[in-house]
């Protein structure tokens, strides 16, 4: 079971307090009507499935009910950072030898 740092509560919490909400940083097209079926289909259905670093959207469902982002290694499940909606990830390449469950 993962331990996730909620950027709003400011604490590590157990995974069971959270729900994963898929890949992060997929904004809704500003003008959906201008999208071709192909473009709209890409927005709706296609997601990355990387082996390694992944930016994800989570919600602290049992806590403060806020959505936030996490940068997680899909191999080790290490979470390098969590950050608020609207912020950019600071980890975009895998750092060397950080520890699981620890905040970068």
């Amino acid at each position: 079971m993962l331990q996730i740092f909620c950027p709003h509560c400011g604490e590590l919490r157990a995974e069971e307090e959270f729900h994963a909400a898929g890949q992060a940083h997929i904004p809704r097209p500003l003008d959906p009507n201008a999208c071709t079926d192909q473009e709209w289909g890409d927005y709706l259905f296609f997601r990355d499935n990387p082996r390694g670093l992944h930016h994800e959207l989570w919600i602290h469902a049992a806590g403060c009910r806020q959505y936030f982002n996490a940068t997680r290694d899909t191999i080790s499940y290490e979470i390098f950072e969590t950050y608020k909606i609207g912020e950019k990830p600071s980890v975009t390449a895998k750092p060397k030898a950080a520890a699981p469950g620890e905040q970068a």
Partner: protein
Amino acid sequence: MSQINRLSNGGRINRNQPLTFTFNGTTYQGFAGDTLAAALLANGVDIIGRSFKYSRPRGIVAAGAEEPNAVLQIGSREATQIPNVRATQQALYSGLVATSTNGWPSVNNDIMGILGKVGGDMMAPGFYYKTFMYPQSMWMTYEKYIRKAAGLGRAPKENDPDRYDHMNQHCDVLVVGGGAAGLAAALAAGRAGARVILADEQEEFGGQLLDSRESLDGRPAADWVAKAVAELKAMPEVLLLPRATVNGYHDHNFLTIHERRFDHLGEVAPMGEARQRMHRVRAKRVVLATGAHERPLVYGNNDVPGNMLAGAVSTYIRRYGVAPGKQLVLSTTNDFAYRVALDWLEAGLKVVAIADARGNPRGAWVEEARAKGIRLLTGSAVIETRGSKRVSAARIAAIDPVGHKVTSPGEWLECDTVATSGGYSPVVHLASHLGGKPTWREDLLAFVPGEGFQQRVCAGAVNGVFQLGDVLADGFEAGVKAAGEVGFAPVSGEVPSVAARSEDASIALFQVPHEKSTARGPKQFVDLQNDVTSAGIELATREGFESVEHVKRYTALGFGTDQGKLGNINGLAIAARSLGISITQMGTTMFRPNYTPVTFGSVAGRNCGALFDPVRYTALHAWHLAQGAEFEDVGQWKRPWYFPKNGEDLHAAVARECKAVRDSVGLLDASTLGKIDIQGPDAREFLNRVYTNAWTKLDVGKARYGLMCKEDGMVFDDGVTACLADNHFLMTTTTGGAARVMQWLEIYHQTEWPDLKVYFTSVTDHWATMTLSGPNSRKLLAEVTDIDLDRDGFPFMTWKEGLVGGVPARVFRISFTGELSYEINVQADYAMGVLEKIVAAGKAYNLTPYGTETMHVLRAEKGFIIVGQDTDGSVTPDDLNMGWCVGRTKPFSWIGWRGMNREDCVRENRKQLVGLKPVDPNVVLPEGAQLVFDTKQQIPMAMVGHVTSSYYSASLGYSFALAMVKGGLKRMGEKVFAPLADGRFVEAEICSSVFFDPKGEQQNV
């Protein structure tokens, strides 16, 4: 004779407290402090079960978690049965009842044994796959017999009388293993002030120190154990958990500990106590001090009862005062195992000989054995044993220095016990649970923990540190390090002194040679629990299985509850040699939780029975109970399903309830509908974006039905939203969709449109909702309210505020039945009082409570959908013939609009919601039935739709259904057929989905 193998003194047992128990129906006696295995050995019980595949007799081999054979069924009655209990881990209690799990019909005389003796060729590895998988249809038949013959224990068929629970723990340092290293680590971390948990799977802390020949500070090692435990107990932030196996090492340093709290006292725990407890531990750091398992030697007929691990024999003598035989032969590759010969001799028994695979061992204990006159055969090993139900002799012969050939015929020596030691395998299981690969160390002839995604420190034998003095120092250092890493200042080391003991290196001997080839020689067992032999492993490699994972699956090496504790290293070394590769190249299989079997009870904890899942009740539940309601689960809610009277069944009750609503007035508890209070200047705009229809012009005081779609254009929820004030709305959702819709609003507000000034708060539980529905609802309500119910002053789809039953209420004039209806909302604390006043006034109108079933029938008569029943996530508003609810000209591209304009969503011939009228008015179509246009076509038929809702309508006088049919809206009047499982077809006519009052006059009166 009782306890023939009990020594006259020694051991950590209480000889003043005899305990009676039974094994396979025979009554025996042991002592408090015994394990079941110790007591069985004390009583001279040689055969403990029959082997899994060959049905060979097997005895106790080990003294701990690594025991492969003595895996027993415990329990005196059906409800208390526990399978897969290792006799070596079960403390003896008075009245314990144990039976063998293998052995059909009896362990001493097993008909399967004949098959086993006939032997190898008939039951080669892969036997099950090769023989029984084909023809596939026969597998089920074979399986029944194989399972019975194999008999791996069984679950109880009655309810367990015990309770189980979970405990969530948090600590700075979790120390796994309470032996020398673990105790030292716990002391170091505890003294530093850390929150420490020390868990050990045995009855008491101390591990090998409890049967050690070595002294600490010049005193027996057990004395130091007692002192260390006492010190730890006195530390307020240290939790000691004996009888607690750390079974799983999960992500982010989350570990599960299976504590057997009362298993040592009886088969049922005292009243109110949980018999077993699962500790769910989040540890900042973990010290793994899991020790090592002795590796048995692999030689001919090494499975005959009486062949045991050397260290286990020492444990039985020193810890339990039991010598499991009279005449011992020891076969070893190392110095440490010599202790068994010395212990055996000191117990006053005969050591026949020691075979040492090494040429010239000269360590301290070797010399002590020599000095005591024990016969020592160097450069030799036990090649094979004989005996059917117990070892009667062992053949010791000389082998070459690399252990590949027998170089002398040797001699048969009479004995009843053969103790063997091929070295020590660190218990790397937990260290590898997250996929960390163990590393082979040639200097140690052992795998040690490799890199893993774990915040842990390994200490002692698991780390490849074996000498007692080093183990204590390593453990202490590990405790200091672990505590230090989480911010605790180190404490100075205070480790007891151990007299130095010279020791020679051990040598590798993973398979003892034999004159005959492995395939033709006597069976050499590698994995006793799964009956895997060295010949089987060689066969696997010859058949092309080269990966260690494939060898495992082909042979079953390390399967099941064993998890390769004894056999894995020997097995993969044999495979490596057979393939001509190194052990490092071969690698190990993946280790997975759990380390030892865990009861389902402790996994479930108290989440069973009435607490299996949360149950939600409305504020009116007690009233429903008093009316004799039958309940239906809707999500976690209990909703009245129907209210039977005078023994009515569902259909009779529903017919009566429907009639009451259509003729007079009915009462429904609608409190479970999701309710969301929405405030803010941009509330309207937000509604425009999340609903398919338009909200800009909804006046204060009015309410409107809305559909919600996902971005793909498919309907996912619906409900009525009322405008309470210009910046204030009350949204209702489906009962099951309440939480989903709330998160839906939040995710769009938080991630996409944070600029919109709007807030959402769930008020589902705050409001209780009572619906009065039927032509007399106005008259009835008028008797209990001060609200003016005038038809024109309070029209359909509006709401009013006022007192109902003396309680402030919001009343919504909306309808889900097609009848004149009022939904009365009051603060839930006051709902019961309001209900009672309504019910009292309702007597004059035959006010009839109705449940969800009647609600479903009434709404279906009106063609009103239920999201999730008539929709399935692939249905657009147009598919539902609800295009009137789509705001096609709304300026903002609302959620679902782009999606429902995809090519596939606007094509012809999509499935559309229609009504069906069975030609036979008494036949109710099964919900979910597939539909076809033509009964004469070949199977598989072209399916053109399915039934979503289907009922008999008492008001209409015929059965009817809602269905999704391809192009259905253009097929009015055409026939469809529902093929039933019995081959019949039900014919029905496609019609409008609105069966009752198509003009909507009833709800507008």
